[in-house]
């Protein structure tokens, strides 16, 4: 049947199973918005296009399905850039659809024209400039396929206004995605598998490094089986949190710059690293020259371009993690790690006594207390969406995630302002789940306009602002590495309680430890959204810390007690 390009957009989205589109209308995308009313897809009006991309991203991370964002040309499209780059770095499958000026005007610097395919070229898996209605169906279908195949990521489809207004025959079946080239099959020759199994079965101090790939591949069960069959302990990257239950006896916790000391020490002392769906980011390895020098490395990774990028590996296994683990599992011939776990546990005890949770209440409110209590009150079952900075690291340290897709955070790009919009996307994906935003006072102010979206969509999202009056992580670096010169990090904030009230959101203020649990309970009892402003200790720092580029085992440790910083450096 004959349809307009605008109608074809929605026909395709509907047939691709899209339930929600996060967007903002404008001139060049008007035909699509006009056609939208005839279709079942629910459109969420955002307050800024960056928010739309983070929502699509949050939706994708919470559900495992493709998130969709929609915007107009020029500024609308340009505002999406940060969200697209965020999704690219964290391999999050999203499709962004943008309007473009009429094809006859392209290149003429027309009103609201911008070369968005040029701009997003290095931060998308692929992008399209569509100038004819007849190209829309195939491109959208391809875009969805590209977004979620292989190593997932963002795809942008830029559609000119005349392509939306034009008409053509729409035949869904005829727009089947063509095969351009044979997929590169996993080169899993038996020799490599044997080599890997030999290392796995004979290592004396092995550690599993589990990353985002475990979750993206849906390999949590295989990872659990692999760890339990071998008895090998599991360290997690920030984005790997949730891939392996925090409560499991083999779970070491988060590795890297703010990982616990025993995790980083275990990695440094190991004789075999089994890297599963992680990419040896600099925040994870510290100084590459001294990184796990005694360890052989097995790298299971879907993206061949990650092999030997940062760390030289002995056995690369390229392929989907779940497939590879299923191939490895039958060859496992060990059942425990003997003394190795005992040794790790011994170093754990030594560090754990410095833990902030074990300190008596000294009248100060620390972010760690807040996160710890949030974990207890929500029984560890909430989806927590964090922003970027100190609170993000405290969340990773003190909220214990047992299930995948329950921590949603911007890891690779470290995008402040991510939390609030991403939580909106997550809530749409998992309406049954309790969704908490944990954000700092800095990042929250970057995208707080989306509070209006929460109210307009009647979403039950709870918000915890960890307010220390500073851009805390930058302040911490200034304290440690710039002799305490707090250049542009003290931060004035509005009264967040009044601000929330202005949006019609109930809000609470907390500045003492004994108020934390009552406030959390009051917020959870609200049928709709609620916000709590936690006024925490101003100059608290995240420990342990591996300074950028330092050896992974040379951490700045937690002070004992808080007044005195003990450094192992």
């Amino acid at each position: 049947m004959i349809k307009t390009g605008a109608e074809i957009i929605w026909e395709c989205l509907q047939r691709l199973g899209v339930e929600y589109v996060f967007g903002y209308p404008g001139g060049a995308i008007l035909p699509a918005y006009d056609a939208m009313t005839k279709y079942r897809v629910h459109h969420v009006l955002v307050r800024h296009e960056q928010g739309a991309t983070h929502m699509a991203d949050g939706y994708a991370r919470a559900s495992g399905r493709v998130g969709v964002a929609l915007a107009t040309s020029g500024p609308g499209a340009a505002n999406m850039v940060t969200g697209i780059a965020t999704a690219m770095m964290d391999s999050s499958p999203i499709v962004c659809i943008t309007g473009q000026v009429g094809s006859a005007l392209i290149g003429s610097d027309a009103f609201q024209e911008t070369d968005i395919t040029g701009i997003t070229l290095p931060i998308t898996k692929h992008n399209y400039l569509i100038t004819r209605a007849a190209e829309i169906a195939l491109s959208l279908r391809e875009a969805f396929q590209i977004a979620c195949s292989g190593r997932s990521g963002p795809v942008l489809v830029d559609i000119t206004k005349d392509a939306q207004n034009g008409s053509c025959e729409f035949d869904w079946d005829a727009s089947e995605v063509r095969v351009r080239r044979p997929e590169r099959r996993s080169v899993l020759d038996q020799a490599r598998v044997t080599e890997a199994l030999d290392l796995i079965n004979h290592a004396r101090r092995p550690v599993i490094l589990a990353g985002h790939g475990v979750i993206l591949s849906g390999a949590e069960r295989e990872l659990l089986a692999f760890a339990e069959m071998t008895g090998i302990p599991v360290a997690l990257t920030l984005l790997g949190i949730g891939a392996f239950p925090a409560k499991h006896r083999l779970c070491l916790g988060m590795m890297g710059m703010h990982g616990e000391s025993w995790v980083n020490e275990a990695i440094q002392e190991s004789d075999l690293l089994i890297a599963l769906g992680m990419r040896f980011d600099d925040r994870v390895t510290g100084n590459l020259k001294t990184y796990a020098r005694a360890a052989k490395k097995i790298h299971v990774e879907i993206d061949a371009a990650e092999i030997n990028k940062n760390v030289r590996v002995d056995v690369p296994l390229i392929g989907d993690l779940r497939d590879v683990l299923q191939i490895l599992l039958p060859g496992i011939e060990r059942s425990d790690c003997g003394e190795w776990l005992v040794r790790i546990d011994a170093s754990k005890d030594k560090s754990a006594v410095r833990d902030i949770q074990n300190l008596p209440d000294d009248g100060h409110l620390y972010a760690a207390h807040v996160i710890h209590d949030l974990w207890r009150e929500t029984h560890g079952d909430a989806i927590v969406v964090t922003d970027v900075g100190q609170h993000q690291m405290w969340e990773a340290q003190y909220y214990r995630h047992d299930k995948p897709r329950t921590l949603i955070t911007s890891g690779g790009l470290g995008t402040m302002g991510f939390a609030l919009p991403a939580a909106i996307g997550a809530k749409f994906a998992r309406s049954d789940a309790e969704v908490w935003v944990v954000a700092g006072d800095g990042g929250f102010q970057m995208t707080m306009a989306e509070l209006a979206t929460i109210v307009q969509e009647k979403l039950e999202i709870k918000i915890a602002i960890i307010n220390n009056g500073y851009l805390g992580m930058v302040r911490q670096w200034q304290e440690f590495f710039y002799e305490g010169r707090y250049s542009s990090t003290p931060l004035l904030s509005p009264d967040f309680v009044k601000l929330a009230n202005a949006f019609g959101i109930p809000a609470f203020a907390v500045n003492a430890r004994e108020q934390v649990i009552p406030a959390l309970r009051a917020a959870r009892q609200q049928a709709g959204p609620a916000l709590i402003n936690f006024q925490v200790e101003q100059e608290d720092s995240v420990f342990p810390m591996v300074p950028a580029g330092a050896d992974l085992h040379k951490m700045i440790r937690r002070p004992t007690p808080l007044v005195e910083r003990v450094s192992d450096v």
Partner: protein
Amino acid sequence: MSKKEKQHAFVLYVENEPGVLNRIASLFRRRGYNIESLTVGHTERPGVSRMTILAGISEGAAQRVEANLYKLVHVLSVEDVTFTPTISRSLALLKVEAHDESRHRLMEVVHVFRARVVDLAPQSLIVEITGTENKIQALVDVLRPFGILEMVRTGEVVMSRGVERQANHDSPSTTELPLEAEASASV
């Protein structure tokens, strides 16, 4: 090029669509690798272009470039032919000053190099030469004293020998058959 770096040659088949060259060039730029030479042209298959890209990079970087190139949707195939037996050629046009007294000597040089004179003007002539980069460079060095007014070079095109494509990284090839007499700088 640093010690670990070596001239790598990549042969790509790509869909002939707008922006493909930009995507490929951008990939090298973004990862910080310098393209030494890039040639592109039609192939025996309609809608498919072939590229030869030379870049001075380390072995590890070459593997990642290959993997990254293959991730581009429009790239149909990519092969690092650095260690496979290949024929490589480029073409150059050289406009050289030529007066009555120097023209004869110039023609001799052109003859020895198996190059061709494709334009003869009162004050200059244009020499066309096809060959390996080394051979072309040798001619350039010899012609320089005559006065090179203008020069254009196509960059290298590379093709694997034989029918089977090989990717044996262990046996660097040095056995190019002397299909034509290669002139050297000592001529």
